[in-house]
């Protein structure tokens, strides 16, 4: 566990948030490179970016507000905003909704998912390094790569995780699994970016891949089990799964993924011509 990276003068540098910041920067660079490659010239795309970022940032912080079925048991929105945890899943939902609202308001009809998908994947890989270095790793494991916490590290984690933080027991490095997944899917998306027959499809593929991975990794993440042996993120993903499955099946039937694995490199479709 590395809660701080050092000091800037008298001020300690918080590890988690430095990596979130680095993740945002890396995502911005990938987005800009992809926008340039696709010759995106419409200024309205930046309003879509702003909409996605604002929606993602707000819902990442407020999306986990409803922790209990009885709403009276939840903290107030103000308390949750000030002291609550943050969630990638609700952040992704907020970003998606924010982009849709911005597109509707500006009349920008070109699909933008192909621009966002590789950027989000690589940004998440970097951002998760902060989680790996500062958060409770996962459930106990006998695998050789398990992370073992010292009593001092457990003491630091206790306020946030309670009895789940245990010293001397190897635990799954669930955030390392996620970093590996994000890097893998980034490479996959990079390879597929000119091979899908429908514009904007990369982001839906990313969401489907991440949903499947996240559902699986939750079994070793160590989040609170709330219903039927499942954690809150798993229940959320179960609710969203039919929608994603329906979309992917429909697109597969239309042949959108037919050329994905063939060695036929297409020219990048300029985003301004890719509207469907």
């Amino acid at each position, binding site marked *: 566990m590395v*809660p*701080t990276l050092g000091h800037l003068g*008298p*001020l*300690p*540098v*918080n590890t*988690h*948030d*430095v990596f*979130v*910041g680095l993740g*945002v920067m890396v995502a911005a660079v990938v987005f800009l490179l992809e926008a340039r490659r696709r010759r*995106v*010239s*419409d*200024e*309205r795309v*930046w*309003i879509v*970016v*702003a*909409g996605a*970022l*604002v929606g*993602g*940032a*707000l819902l*990442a*912080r407020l999306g986990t507000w409803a922790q209990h079925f009885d709403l009276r048991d939840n903290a107030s929105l103000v308390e949750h*905003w*000030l*002291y609550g945890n943050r969630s990638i899943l609700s952040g992704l939902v907020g970003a998606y909704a924010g982009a849709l609202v911005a597109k509707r308001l500006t*009349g920008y009809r070109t699909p933008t998912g192909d621009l966002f998908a590789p950027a989000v994947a690589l940004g998440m890989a970097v951002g998760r390094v902060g989680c790996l270095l500062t958060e409770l790793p996962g459930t106990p494991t006998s695998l050789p790569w398990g992370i073992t916490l010292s009593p001092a590290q457990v003491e630091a984690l206790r306020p946030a995780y309670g009895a789940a933080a245990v010293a001397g027991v190897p635990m799954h490095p669930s955030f390392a699994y996620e970093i590996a997944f994000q890097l893998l899917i980034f490479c996959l998306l990079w390879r597929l970016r000119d091979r899908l027959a429908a514009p904007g499809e990369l982001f839906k593929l990313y969401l489907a891949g991440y949903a499947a991975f996240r559902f699986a990794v939750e079994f070793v993440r160590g989040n609170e089990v709330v219903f039927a042996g499942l954690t809150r993120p798993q229940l959320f993903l179960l609710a969203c799964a039919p929608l994603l499955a329906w979309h992917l099946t429909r697109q597969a039937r239309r042949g959108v993924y037919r050329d994905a694995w063939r060695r036929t490199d297409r020219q990048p479709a300029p985003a301004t011509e890719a509207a469907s």
Partner: protein
Amino acid sequence: MTQPQPDSGQPTPEPEPPAGGGLRARLGGIGLSLLGYVLALVVALTELRSSDSGYTVLAYAVTATAVTVVLLVLGVALVIPQRTRAFGTGVLIGAAIGVLCGGGICFGVLATI
């Protein structure tokens, strides 16, 4: 000789400025937003001299939240007119970055002082 007539049934699209034209304005907007969060941190650190760190974190939380609300309202207001659109977009992007990491970084700084 007939001139091509515009399609009267279709609204004329608003002309977009050339790519990259608003880059400086966008960066300016992002800078203004991040400056807002830095100011919130400075206010909280000033409070630190006269009180305990728990109160300082609360002071930062309240100030940063107020800054976020102001920036979001300002950003949306500036995005509407074409002339200030790029700057407003930058303000919104900066506010989102501030919420995602700026707030966290400052919380981390204050909590460990």
